[in-house]
């Protein structure tokens, strides 16, 4: 810890939080100085979110103490936290879609402020930090970046002396990230401390003064990110050495397996994005990546490819030379198309069903689990058991409820369920979202191995790093349009960033 004589703005000592069966935080302690940008680094499930929820008063620690400007305090609830001067910007925004920007900000204020005065204060904060927002707009019409600005303005209006940012850049384009950093540095220069939660190491190196690393609920190290290398911090975070993806030596592509031709699809509901004239092809053995900021049509694209949203134009999707555009999900699966949507619970799997019952969901036809209208539960159990073993899924067995598995284990199970069916084309969205590094590496390896057997794979992801390390070809989706595919080996980051931000003539990614 840095040896300063001034009182720490925030000091945690021995913070412990238990959940049934889990020790989320195990005697964690660190301190944040005034004006310091302090990174809280760790994998998913390392206990970062639990820790900041206790600082912000959403949860109470079981043990340990919190000191604020030297005073020992108890933060009873978020209101108390805000009164102290602690602001927070959530990873999943706490916004109200059907309400205006102004109403959203008013809800974040603890005292009733007359509308006129509030508008004045918002304008002042916005011009001070270069944040642009229209107060009367309905939130559902805003882009992700604009929504985050509401959260930031809401926090800044309270003149916080500590601002907690939970994974703020996961949904931003590289350019938006830069703009955010400018705001944060300005704030820090004015004396506001910032607790910055992330697992993106290059960001932490670029922004933060100090980094506290958590692993499995325990404090691993507090270090200076400017001195450490990305690799050394990553290894502390994971608690082992990083494994690289193993690829076969020769990477030739085979015949065209998936061909998408002028695929368009109307927006699904008021908050959806329409697909506009999407075309690309994927060959056997190729991994095709689709990058983009959340909400630019990724969900619609997955549904259009999996057949959950069939298309009027039969020729819009071709698999192994067969036109499947009008086919529904079940028929497409018969043609060898498998898919893994972004949302695990409630889309890829039924949370309250056992793993065996979840095997029936997508594998019943290809693996003959239904005879004469009756289900063969034994076949489902056997297959679920195979998936659990082949993908090292940590579960009590095929009878375990899907919702009882951790995110990473459920994702491995779902990936395994599709991959072991030997699909001709596999479409996956956010394959490693909210998954720990071990499971992510296993999933990446499984995708590469599947491609090596001659399947065509489409990976839709917001994590550009993931796509760059995994894919052979890459395209960017923005506002429902897909950019020209480019070879990953020749792609330039800033060019991809501009495409993600919608800089090719079209409007940015607003709903409707």
């Amino acid at each position, binding site marked *: 810890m840095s040896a300063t004589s001034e009182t720490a703005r925030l000091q945690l000592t021995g913070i412990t939080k238990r959940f*049934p069966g889990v020790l989320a935080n195990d005697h964690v302690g660190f301190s944040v100085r005034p004006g310091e940008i302090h990174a809280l680094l760790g994998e998913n499930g390392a206990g970062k979110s639990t820790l900041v929820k206790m600082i912000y*008063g959403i949860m*109470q620690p079981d043990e340990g103490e919190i000191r604020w400007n030297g005073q020992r*305090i*108890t*933060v*009873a*609830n978020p209101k*108390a936290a805000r*009164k102290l001067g602690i602001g927070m910007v959530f990873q999943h925004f706490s916004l109200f879609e059907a309400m205006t920007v102004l109403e959203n900000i008013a809800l974040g204020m603890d005292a009733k402020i007359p509308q006129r005065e509030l508008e004045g204060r918002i304008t002042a904060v916005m011009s001070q930090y270069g944040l642009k927002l229209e107060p009367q707009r309905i939130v559902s019409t805003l882009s992700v970046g604009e929504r985050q600005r509401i959260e930031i303005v809401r926090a800044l209006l309270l003149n916080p002396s500590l601002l907690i940012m939970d994974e703020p850049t996961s949904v931003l384009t590289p350019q938006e990230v830069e703009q955010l950093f400018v705001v944060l540095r300005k704030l820090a220069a004015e004396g506001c401390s910032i607790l910055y939660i992330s697992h993106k190491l290059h960001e932490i190196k670029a922004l933060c003064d100090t980094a506290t690393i958590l692993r499995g609920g325990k404090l691993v190290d507090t270090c200076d990110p400017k001195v450490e290398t990305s690799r050394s911090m990553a290894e502390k975070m994971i608690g082992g050495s990083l494994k690289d993806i193993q690829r076969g030596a020769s990477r030739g592509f085979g015949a065209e397996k998936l061909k998408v031709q002028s695929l368009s699809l109307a927006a699904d509901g008021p908050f959806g994005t329409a697909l506009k004239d999407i075309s690309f092809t994927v060959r056997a053995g190729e991994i095709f990546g689709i990058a983009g900021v959340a909400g630019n049509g990724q969900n619609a694209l997955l549904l259009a490819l*999996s*057949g*959950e949203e069939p298309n009027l134009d039969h020729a819009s999707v071709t698999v192994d030379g067969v036109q499947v555009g009008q086919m*529904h*999900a*079940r*028929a497409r*699966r018969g043609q060898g198309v498998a*898919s893994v*949507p972004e*949302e695990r619970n*409630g*889309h*890829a*799997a*039924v*949370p*309250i*069903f056992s793993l065996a*019952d979840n095997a*029936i*969901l*997508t594998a*019943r036809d290809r693996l003959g689990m*239904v005879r004469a*209208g*009756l*289900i063969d*539960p034994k076949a489902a159990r056997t297959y679920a058991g195979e998936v659990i073993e082949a993908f090292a899924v940590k579960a009590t067995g095929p*009878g*375990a*409820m899907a919702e*009882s598995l951790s995110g990473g284990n459920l994702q491995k199970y779902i990936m395994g369920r599709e991959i072991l069916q030997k699909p001709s084309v596999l479409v996956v969205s956010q394959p490693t979202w909210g998954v720990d590094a071990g499971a992510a590496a296993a999933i990446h390896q499984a995708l590469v191995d599947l491609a090596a057997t001659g399947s065509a794979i489409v990976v839709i992801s917001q994590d550009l790093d993931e796509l760059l390390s995994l894919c052979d070809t890459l395209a960017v989706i923005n506002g429902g349009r897909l950019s020209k595919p480019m070879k990953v080996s020749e792609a330039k980051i800033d060019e991809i960033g501009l495409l993600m931000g919608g800089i090719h003539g079209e409007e940015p990614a607003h709903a409707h």
Partner: protein
Amino acid sequence: MRIKLEKRREPSMAMLVITPVASVLLTMLIGIVVFDLIGIKGFKAVVDIFLSPLLASYKWQDVALKAAPLIIIALGLSMGNRAQVWNIGAEGQYVIGALCSAGVGIAFGAAGGFFVILLMVLAGMIGGGAWAAIPAVLRTRYNVNEILSSLMLTYVALQVLGYLVGGPWKDPNGRNFPATAPLIDAQTLPVWPGSTVHLGVLVALVLPFVFWVIMARSEFGYQVRVVGSSPTAARHGGFDSRRTIWATLIIGGAMAGLAGSLEFTGVLHKIDLGFPSGYGFTAIIVAFLGRLNPIGCLIAGIVLAVTYVGGQMAQTSVHIPNSTAGIFQAMMLFFILASDILVRYRVRIIPSAKAVA
């Protein structure tokens, strides 16, 4: 003090079975206390309502006759509820089913026998199913909430009944009473010799097992459960939610229609303004008390039938009003809904130790 909920890793099978039994016992206990408080011999009343019908063998056939429609309707409703389809208009479908049977019976005039009766019963199922198809169309095409539409249609069905039995179908020899003419013997359901137990009771005993096979073993039953648990996952798995809504609503309506038809051809033999007796609503309680499980519906149907028969017995023995049985039934439903949480959560009570900011 506050209540804290901890999610169980897997739903507790023990709680799934214990909670309905406990709900019935708790209802009895509260009944004793409340009756004593309002000056009625509580113990006697509760024994009369819940136990006497079981102890007196001559009441068994009454229980069987009341249980049959409850079980049959509840089977259809519980299948719908599994798919998150809320058909609360079973009473109307029951009425329309009986009316369709009556229509077929009238059309055949003096003809009777096995095929006529079969046609009458089938017409009842089709009529009930068709009445339930209206909310199905409205839900799948126009996005109309089936709770409201199915219930509204019940009020319409009651007026249809009132019109038919008071007008075109009125018994000419009935002293101007709004009721249909009694069925001729050749159009009534066969009855177990020496009793009033009709063939429909056998149907009500067999159907739960048929429904159990459908729900637990068939692909259609799987589809119903997936659509009810998460429609998005159902679509991912290639199941059509709209078709499932259709199917469950129509099956629910057909079951209610069947029950109405059996009640008409097996018990009452005529339809008057008192024909709708609330089975369609009580069956909702049966479905929940039976935990939406077909075999559970069988048992719960018998329990509710006992309270019906017992309620009538208690009316004469301890002079409690008829509506008391209704309160008991609602209380059971409250308890079963309140205890639902025990299946998926452990409840811990934490003494209050609120920290002050």
